[in-house]
């Protein structure tokens, strides 16, 4: 702890020395209508040929010598504001409201707001809903998560999975946040749709290198979804009707324009189509999902903002009355921001998350299976702009409590009441300090330190295993008893060198710890996922990640070129031993094996963000490997999500003020899988022989989508557009999986059978707002 304090004092000292003879210009940039802060907005001083970006709260700071300046405030999709400012002897505050460009004059570009734009203020990739408006959709669902996978570093499970693989990380190594609350299973309908209804998303941000110190707890990346919080000026409705889902949102302004609330709902209606079928058996199947979101803010004073948000969504599948599964997420955040003065901001957050699933009518019986996970969290952060634009300090901490319910089997029978696997509890606490500073006019440094403490808490039954992984002993821990502790220090460092406005060279290092582990039995994003806390045998996952990047931005040509080299080392990775039985197994820890991983790769991005013709090309060349002493003697093998090549091309052209055509093409190396190398006979059965892990590849994945959008003329307040999308234009049968099945005509022969889930899917969607 004393180290942290020393470092903090050191930072303060440097800052004090460097802040002289300058006056400060600061303020917040917000959306004129919603009053939502606009992060990453550009503030440009023509006279000095210098600019900064606003931070995640929309705040910006500049230090200027006395004089008159023309300052340009701009953000993609918003009208640029130019303001003449006289800097004299005092600190000036200038809050800016940017107006959203209407569709009539719109030049909305599709742009991944990027990493370290002009300053070292932001890292990662982010999307706003406006940016993806015209891109093609799947069955009318414009899925931001899927669109995100068209950029560098972010890859996705096959058709039928929303597992996100960020720079070789597993999907459970991503921290998915709705506002500030964790979401454990971010997919609907066996992975076809993400749970985030694009209509309620204000901004979706990804961080996969140089992670900010205020976040931790996962070993790969952070995905944060910022909800729209409504508009404070008037009531409004918006919605859409697609082939498979309908959405409706209501905007409620609070009295005196002090806040707003946006309530939104979405439901899929595949089951309504089923009802139209004649076949009685098919008709009674249930397949649907729905979600409800609520997000709002209230500003009691100019110095305080209260924010709330909540997500609740569920999926249900009932199949031939034989098998029903029901699962869902809940994520809620309550946040209070208080501005002590222009330099000092406090953020206080309470979050709650829940994930659970139930399996019913198991084989038409009354047997039910249920499992879940709850999480509650308190977080406090302070942001201190010590020397605006030159020196910023963030510090804070948090406590997170999780309760894991690994599963219970409920039987409605007297002879067998079923059983419950003991719940587990864990506490995760952290403190962090992070600082961003200009150490030289052309050098920016970001340095942070995060300390994590993990405690596994009773009550629980804890099993210890002998060398044969047999239960040796069972220890019953009382409530509140700490039975396992881990802790670790996670440094995060980034250095940026910007010789001119156009060029930027940077390097970053981060360490990440993860104390929750996902054990999932399937290759599919099934909701039967099982989360486990760290314990004596399941050690925390640790990632060390290095990256080196170069970025070229030309405003003149409206072009951006970026390349990044990265390397990651992962410790204490979890896999299953052969033949692991993880379902409803109280001795789950005896079924796991532990090993290490490594990831290395290089990213390229070429992007044109201005003009009638926009788009980007993203390419990643990478290798992701794992090694487990108990799997083929520790030989390195490619991880399932290892994607040697990953290429995406996104193009958008505005043919006419009302017509926009957009197209995307994506290509990637097929998943690494284990195929047999022979066969033999045992116990009267023909059995497949395997000689290595993930030594084969499923066929490569590629797909072309087209979208055409027509924006109707704005009539009073009524705004609408029509989107025609064709998913998978050339009907590529991308492989979902390959199974080796007995030939029906010749039971002594096996065939390799490819399953593919989607073919060409056209769709029509009508979006409206009034």
């Amino acid at each position: 702890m004393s180290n942290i304090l020393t470092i903090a004092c050191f930072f303060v000292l440097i800052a004090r020395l460097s802040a002289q003879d300058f006056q400060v210009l600061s303020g917040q940039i917000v959306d004129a209508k919603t009053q939502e802060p606009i992060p990453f907005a550009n503030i440009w001083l023509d006279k000095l040929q210098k600019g900064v970006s606003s931070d995640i709260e929309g705040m910006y700071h500049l230090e200027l010598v006395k004089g008159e300046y023309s300052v340009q405030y701009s953000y993609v999709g918003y009208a640029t504001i130019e303001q003449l400012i006289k800097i004299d002897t005092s600190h000036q505050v200038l809050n800016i409201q940017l107006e959203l460009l209407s569709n009539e004059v719109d030049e909305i570009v599709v742009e991944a707001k990027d990493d370290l734009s002009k300053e070292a203020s932001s890292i990662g990739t982010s999307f706003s809903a406006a940016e993806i408006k015209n891109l093609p959709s799947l069955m009318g669902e414009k899925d931001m998560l899927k669109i995100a996978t068209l950029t560098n570093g972010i890859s996705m499970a096959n058709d039928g999975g929303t597992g996100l693989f960020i720079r070789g990380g597993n999907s459970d190594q991503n921290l998915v946040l709705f506002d500030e609350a964790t979401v454990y299973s971010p997919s609907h309908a066996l992975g076809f749709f993400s749970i985030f209804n694009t209509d309620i998303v204000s901004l979706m941000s990804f961080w996969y290198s140089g992670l900010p110190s205020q976040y931790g707890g996962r070993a790969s990346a952070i995905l944060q979804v910022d909800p729209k919080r409504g508009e404070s000026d008037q009531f409004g409705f918006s919605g859409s009707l697609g082939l498979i889902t309908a959405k409706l949102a209501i905007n409620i302004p609070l009295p005196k324009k002090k806040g707003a609330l946006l309530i939104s709902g979405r439901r899929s209606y595949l089951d309504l189509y089923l009802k139209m079928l004649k076949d009685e058996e098919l008709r009674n199947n249930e397949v649907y999902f729905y979600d409800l979101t609520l997000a709002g803010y209230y500003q009691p004073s100019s110095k305080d903002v209260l924010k709330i948000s909540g997500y609740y969504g569920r999926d249900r599948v009932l199949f031939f009355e034989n098998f029903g599964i029901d699962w869902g997420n809940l994520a809620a955040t309550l946040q209070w921001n208080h501005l002590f003065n222009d330099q000092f901001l406090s953020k206080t957050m309470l979050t709650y998350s829940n994930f659970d699933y139930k399996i019913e009518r198991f084989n038409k019986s009354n047997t039910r299976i249920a499992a879940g996970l709850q999480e509650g969290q308190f977080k406090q952060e302070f942001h201190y702009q010590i020397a605006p634009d030159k020196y910023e300090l963030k510090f804070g901490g948090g406590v997170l409590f999780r309760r894991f319910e690994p599963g219970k089997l409920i039987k409605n029978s007297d002879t067998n009441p079923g059983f419950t696997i003991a719940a587990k509890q864990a506490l995760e606490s952290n403190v962090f300090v992070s600082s961003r500073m200009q150490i030289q006019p052309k050098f920016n440094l970001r340095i942070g330190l995060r300390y994590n403490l993990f405690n596994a808490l009773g009550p629980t039954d804890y099993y210890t295993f002998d060398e044969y992984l047999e239960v040796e002993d069972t220890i019953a821990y009382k409530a509140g008893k700490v039975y396992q502790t881990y802790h670790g220090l996670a440094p995060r460092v980034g250095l940026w060198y910007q010789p001119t406005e156009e060029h930027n060279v940077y390097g970053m290092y981060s360490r990440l710890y993860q104390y929750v582990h996902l054990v999932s039995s399937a290759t599919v994003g099934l909701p039967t996922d099982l989360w486990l806390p760290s314990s004596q045998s399941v050690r925390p996952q640790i990632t060390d990640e290095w990256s080196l990047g170069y970025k070229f931005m030309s405003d003149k040509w409206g072009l951006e070129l970026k390349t990044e080299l990265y390397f990651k080392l992962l410790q204490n990775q979890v896999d299953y031993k052969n033949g692991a039985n993880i379902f409803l197994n109280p001795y789950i820890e005896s079924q796991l094996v532990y090993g290490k991983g490594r990831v290395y790769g290089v990213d390229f991005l070429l992007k044109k963000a201005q003009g009638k013709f926009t788009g980007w090309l993203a390419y990643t060349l990478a290798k992701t490997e794992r090694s487990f002493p108990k799997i083929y003697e520790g030989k390195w093998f490619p991880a399932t999500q290892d994607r040697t090549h990953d290429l995406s091309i996104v193009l958008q052209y505005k043919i006419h003020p009302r017509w926009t055509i957009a197209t995307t093409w994506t290509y990637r190396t097929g998943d690494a899988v284990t195929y047999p190398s022979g066969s033999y006979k045992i116990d009267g059965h023909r059995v497949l022989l395997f000689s290595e892990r993930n030594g084969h590849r499923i066929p490569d994945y590629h797909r072309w989508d087209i979208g055409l959008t027509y924006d109707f003329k704005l009539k009073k307040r009524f705004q609408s557009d029509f989107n025609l999308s064709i998913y998978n234009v050339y009907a590529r049968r991308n492989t979902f999986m390959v199974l080796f099945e007995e030939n029906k005509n010749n039971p002594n022969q096996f065939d390799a059978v490819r399953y593919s889930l989607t073919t060409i899917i056209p769709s029509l969607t009508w979006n409206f707002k009034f």
Partner: protein
Amino acid sequence: MHNIKYYIFVIITLTSCKDKIQVALQNDEQPIVIEGLLTNEPIQSIDIHRSGDFYELDAYEAINDATVQIKDSTGLTILLTLDQNGHYESVAWTAQIGQEYNLTIQHKEETYTAKTILPKQIKIKEVDVKINNDSSAYIRCKFEDPIGEQNFYRLRFYRNGDIQESRLYVLRDLNFEGKTKIYNFKREAIAYGDTIVVELWHIPKHTYTYYSQLKEVIEQGLLSSVPYNPESNIKGGALGYWGAASIDRDTLILKL
């Protein structure tokens, strides 16, 4: 649990299209497969063959030139002789309960060894048949699980002499430790006059592990864990197993 996987599998297969593809599979030096089960019955047998090509038909190379021995801890050695097609048999001889038996197989330059212990016999208390409303039937096998020890079982059912086994029925006493267990074996078709034979195998843990892995590998589907070879207890690089089973048998003739 395979039922869940099964239903999810059905959902996926119904919503997907499938076609046959050609997958290039490597074909290295294929290992030997040894299948041996020591029982409480008079004749012991071992089967040895070489594993074959993936696309190959049912024509595995039988290993007929191996030396096969079973030795107990007292030094008694039983030599098994080739009967036919890689099938080796002992003379009439009864293995002792609780005794450890070592298997040694010599083939060309290679030696394969494994050991197992014959568990005690667990008697079937009762076999009966319950006819359901939908004319399917449950054949029920009742037995007592011994108190204070881990026990592993395999069950086999025969109808008129034919094995009724679409999958392997293996279980451990996790949920019925020291209690009476009734195992329900569901049959869709059964008729009066049928002769039903039920076998209860009491097996050691390593045999259970092998069978349950084998069961998973056979039922597989890619929805289970990553494909693998069932874990063999044979040292020397062979596939297969050297297991043990004390078998109890009960016969029931369905009468009106």
